[in-house]
């Protein structure tokens, strides 16, 4: 168990970085609580694997420090940090049985045989592997192998954190959720710090207490799944989380509202007060398809739009509407009626967001 601290941490693969773009991981200072489940979420190349390897000790950062419980571990090796890591593809020792695989880390540390047996059986039980203990690890299915990889981390009672690098990549789609559930259960039971890297938002949001969204080397927002969904602090977070992502339209500022092509759209008070006075920057108005309301024109605050398409997603509907030359998406429930001719949309201020240069205002 360990609180993890990043002190001005950064990493560049160039010997002499000058621009922000030279950095694989941009300047980061943060503290992460002990025993929580964290997810690093972002597209390929955003720096999440770089950060994970720095945390595990497989990569030494070019700048800054990493601290576990206040101790500087920046240059420590993975085993010195007591880290366990599960990789994209199952990493198991082919010639050993499941039992021997799980016992391996303990035997290397000269733990007495009785303790080894106890720990191995305990972890096997938690991972539903008890029946397979005597089998050759190589013969099992990929998800069982990934569980073994996880198990090798869990057997060590002194493990500080378990890191997962896109571990469900090779797992069959319709068994993925079984492993996801198992991961969550393990976390509840062992209360270890778990850090999970993925590009799949469902995995990140299901698994983690807190999700760090990363983009081009920078950590754009760290928050609970609910915070990221309801209050994205960066347009990238709005775009990346949610399916589809947030609707964005360029706008200008009026007195207490935003102007999109001259149409006034009310803004929440927070945004108005924070934005007021400061000029400059590109403004965008954002609202998630789940919060944008579809109604009939004539209702209060309704802005007429053209409905250009409706998709039946089985469990819900997704309507595409056009406001001048902006395309917006609205998520609707299965039964909701869609007016063909006099459709209009409404922006509830609670969910309307204002962004300046991609950052949330207010």
């Amino acid at each position: 168990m360990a609180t993890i601290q990043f002190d001005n941490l950064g990493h560049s693969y160039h010997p002499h970085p000058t621009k922000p773009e030279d950095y694989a991981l941009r300047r980061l200072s943060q503290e992460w609580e002990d025993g929580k489940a964290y997810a690093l979420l972002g597209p390929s190349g955003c720096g999440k694997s770089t950060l994970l390897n720095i945390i595990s000790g497989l990569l030494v950062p070019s700048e800054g420090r990493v601290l576990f419980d206040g101790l500087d571990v920046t240059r420590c090796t993975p085993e010195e940090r007591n880290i366990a890591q599960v990789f994209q593809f199952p990493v198991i020792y082919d010639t050993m049985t499941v039992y021997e695989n799980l016992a391996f880390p303990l035997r290397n540390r000269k733990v007495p045989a009785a303790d080894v047996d106890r720990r191995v059986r305990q972890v096997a039980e938690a991972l539903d592997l008890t029946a397979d203990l005597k089998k050759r690890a190589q013969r099992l299915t990929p998800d069982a192998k990934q569980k073994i990889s996880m198990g090798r981390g869990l057997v060590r009672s002194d493990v500080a954190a378990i890191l997962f690098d896109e571990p469900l990549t090779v797992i069959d789609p319709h068994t993925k959720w079984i492993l996801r559930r198992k991961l969550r259960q393990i976390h509840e039971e062992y209360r270890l710090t778990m850090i999970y890297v993925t590009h799949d938002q469902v995995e990140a949001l299901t698994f983690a207490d807190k999700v760090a969204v990363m983009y081009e080397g920078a950590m754009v927002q760290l928050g609970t799944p609910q915070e990221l969904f309801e209050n994205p602090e960066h347009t990238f977070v709005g775009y990346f989380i949610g399916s589809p992502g947030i609707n964005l339209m360029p706008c200008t500022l009026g007195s207490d509202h935003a102007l999109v092509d001259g149409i006034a759209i009310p803004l929440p008070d927070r945004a108005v007060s924070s934005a007021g006075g400061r000029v400059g920057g590109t403004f965008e108005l954002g609202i998630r398809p789940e919060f944008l309301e579809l109604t009939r024109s004539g209702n209060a605050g309704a802005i007429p739009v053209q409905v250009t398409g409706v998709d039946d997603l089985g469990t819900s509907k997704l309507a595409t509407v056009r406001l001048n030359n902006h395309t917006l998406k609205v998520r609707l429930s299965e039964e909701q009626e869609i007016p063909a001719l006099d459709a209009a949309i409404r922006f509830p201020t609670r969910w309307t967001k204002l962004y300046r240069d991609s950052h949330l205002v207010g």
Partner: protein
Amino acid sequence: MDKVQDNRAWFLIIPVFLIVAFSAVVPLMTVVNYSVQEIFGPGQTFFVGTEWFEAVLKDERLHDALVRQIIYSLAVLAIEIPLGILIALGMPGGRSAKTSLTLVLLALPLLIPFNVVGTIWQIFGRGDIGLLGATFRAIGIDYNYTSNSAHAWITVLVMDVWHWTSLVALLCYAGLQSIPPAFYQAAKIDGASKWAVFRYIQLPKMRGVLIIAVLLRFMDSFMIYTEPFVLTGGGPGNSTTFLSQYLTQMAVGQFDIGKAAAFSIVYFLIVLLFSFIFYTIITRTGEGEKK
């Protein structure tokens, strides 16, 4: 996965087919034919059935040569395989000038024609003009591969190791390079010692290339001819006369075609048998591997 038939492909194979038939199949059938005939001269051939085969199997000198050959091949494998693995483990990886240089140096012994190899060592080991021989003489060791059987054996073995270990090393190197770094990382995290890493990760993952290395080295060493012939001529006496040299003596020296033909077939079958045994042993140890 069967491909949709396109019969025109058969026409492309005919030339190759003819060449193989001409140079391999027909001669092989000729040998089989000779092995069951007694030949006194052109046109005077008598069918003798399995007589030659019986003679071959009872031939004492052949038994001796076979024993010598088996010891030789096993010794070669016992030295070259572990040595090759060790060298592969020590080689630099990645794409650097150091790696390229090492690979080139390793490949050099493999490029030398076999009789030149024999000649190099023949001169090398001579007491008067050879570097090795002269050095031994200088430090007081009475080294003479032409009169001392033990010395001859050792020299032949060392020559083979010098010549062929690189092949094993290069094959193992290729095998090692294909191991994803994640395995080494996981082993580090598990606190595994270098020996454990070798035993549980590297060796199992090299299984494929090791099969090839063992089979190649076994078959080649079992059929070895040129190098020991040039070096020792089979001597002193017949202490370094291996199977293929004995066969040649029989066929060319004594012109005992029938017996030689029978022996060839027996030789072929022995090689086949041993190769099959080796292959089965190695694949059996990795049984149950799931793709």
